[in-house]
């Protein structure tokens, strides 16, 4: 089983800890993970802002980067959804417009079935829910929109969290409501985005949890940015970093370093 990490551009640049956590976690579970450096961005920011044409080279790049692997695992629900839902669409539209030809469609067709969001890969492929993690904190889980409605992650992340030793899961009120990030939406409609974020942050604070966790650092960028601005105690933490933490690991658990992310 040849497994590659697709770290995503946001994690690569802003949250390398999340990428390292995936490596730690998968290696602990006996999986050898590769990182083809040819990878870059899935193209979601461009696609969702209306620049579909600019994503075509990225579809090709993605397929080329991961060609030698059976599985591509990514710690991002929305990037996995971008590949799975939109790559075939991008190829289809390019063909309809007389560009791309067969190769783009074939690239998309090869990329889609091997791409897994991290919790999907753990639960569906490795068939584990107890990954041997230890995280002695109260945590609330926010199901991100793309994980919830595009990937249909269902209770996979929760099942993984429930098996983490020491972790107390707190129910998030209105959990299925969007946090208001929405990529460029956050800056194109800042008032509504901030209003949605304020409601989400209020819900997080109501739980009294020490950390809010999701499958996507992009949503956490927004939720965490608001929590910090408010001086709230709750920390944003990616699920990979919780699942990577163990009793043996003497470092301060992820998200709890005291230095804000």
């Amino acid at each position, binding site marked *: 089983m040849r497994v590659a990490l697709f770290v995503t551009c946001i994690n690569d640049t802003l949250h*390398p800890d999340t990428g390292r956590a995936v490596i730690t976690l998968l290696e602990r579970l006996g999986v050898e993970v590769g990182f083809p450096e040819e990878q870059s961005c899935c193209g979601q920011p461009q696609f969702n802002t209306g620049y*579909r044409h600019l994503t075509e080279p990225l579809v090709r790049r993605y397929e080329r980067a991961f060609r030698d692997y059976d599985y591509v695992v990514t710690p991002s629900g929305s990037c996995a959804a971008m590949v799975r839902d939109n790559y075939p669409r991008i190829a289809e539209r390019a063909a309809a417009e007389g560009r791309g030809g067969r190769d783009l469609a074939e690239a998309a067709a090869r990329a889609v079935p091997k791409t897994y969001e991290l919790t999907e890969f753990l639960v569906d492929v490795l068939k584990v829910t107890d990954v041997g993690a230890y995280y002695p904190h109260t945590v609330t889980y926010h199901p991100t929109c793309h994980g919830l409605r595009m990937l249909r992650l269902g209770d996979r992340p929760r099942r993984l969290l429930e098996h983490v030793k020491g972790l107390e899961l707190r129910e998030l009120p209105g959990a299925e*409501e969007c946090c208001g990030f929405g*990529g460029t939406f956050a800056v194109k409609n800042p008032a*509504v985005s*901030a*209003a949605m*974020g304020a409601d989400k942050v209020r819900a997080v604070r109501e739980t009294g949890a020490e950390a809010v966790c999701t499958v996507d650092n992009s949503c956490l960028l927004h939720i965490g940015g*608001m929590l910090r*601005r408010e001086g709230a105690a709750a920390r944003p933490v990616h699920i990979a970093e919780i699942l990577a933490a163990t009793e043996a690991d003497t470092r301060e658990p992820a998200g709890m370093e005291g230095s804000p992310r």
Partner: protein
Amino acid sequence: MSGTYLGMPAFPTAAASSTQDGRLRANLRYATHTIRDKRAKAVAELDDWARLRAAGAAVKDRTLRHLDHYLEQLEEAVTAAGGQVHWAADAAEANAIVARLVRETGEREVVKVKSMATQETGLNRALAEAGISAYETDLAELIVQLGDDLPSHILVPAIHRNRGEIRDIFRERMGRWGRAAPEGLSDAPGELAEAARLHLREKFLNAKVGISGANFMVAETGTLVVVESEGNGRMCLTLPETLISVVGIEKIVPTWQDLEIFLQLLPRSSTAERMNPYTSMWTGTADGDGPRTFHLVLLDNGRTDTLADTVGRQALRCIRCSACLNVCPVYERAGGHAYGSAYPGPIGAILTPQLRGTASELDASLPYASSLCGACYEVCPVAIDIPEVLVHLRERVVQGGKVTRRGVKTVLKPAKGHAAERAAMRAAGFAFDHPGVLRAGQRLAGRTRRLHPRRLPGPGHAWSDTRDLPPVPAESFRDWWRRTRGEERGK
């Protein structure tokens, strides 16, 4: 706010002020969450909901594919049943036809059934200019009309009002339009409904002309269907001597058997009812029963152009249930008026820029009025992939491209005001396709991290006004990998 959407600001500007309106936010939050939860329960009762939804989408798609055929079949059937059919290419033509038909009756007053098509065309205003008073008889539309306001929701046009505000509007304004509100009217729902009932009863009994829309038109028999829950529609459709119905051409279903699907999908999605309370159906005219004259005005107003777009055309499946509004986190916080159209919420964000085009700043801003969370698509009873169409329309705004306007194929230029974004996207696209450039950028950001300001200047303030920026780490993942694992493993 007075009776027109013209000249309204772009969505982000309108939403910047509406999100600050605490009372509006509270009214909307309470109302949308109530309907949202009730709908979820009503839908969960049916085991075959997914199949009904697929059937609804399929029937609509097939009908739209052969719309020319069904429209002619409908015209033939309506005419054979004693009705008269008129064709209106746009809003102005529809309004002119209705004004002429009313004038020909010699009447100066009409009663109206709640109708989205006539909100879309701005009929009431056009009739007023022609010296004709149009009285809205749906409770919420009455509240909006008396308040010199605009609807902010498809199904519940006065959703932005609470009881206290409604009581004040009734007390102050009812007398100017007819029977005044009873003395000492309170904000008890029963009393408010009774005041409206007494006020409207007068209108129903005096009206000689009724104006309606229709939820469905059955092509095989020429039957029109209005679905409502107050009974005001039934009054307007049966008491007047003349009935004029203005209906969008996409409202056709081929047969009565097809109608069966939608009469299950619509009530559960809109009002969370298992069965709709008042379902009125009529076929042309009948001697001694109901209106003696019936006119059907078929409205295009951008629908044929929308049909020409292979991605955008799914918006024409819409049955105006408003389930997408009730689950939309953006609608809930911005309110319906920010969308500057009779069609607010997610469906409005994809319908308005197609029906009206994307030339105005407001219409070009609508496809961006969404975080693409997908809640709308999930509840849509005819499976309109609203996020897909939103992204498609964003592409139209920033890239331009082929569109059909008034039946003519044209090539649209990219909208103004996106030059900086376009340049940034191209630069990012270049970096992402040249990982060496990406790495150099990351290293630069990492080395200058201590110099990064906490709040961003220029357009970046849209982020940093309310949110802190994440600190940039000293080392990117890809550099960490290369340093610790070397290139041989991660080739």
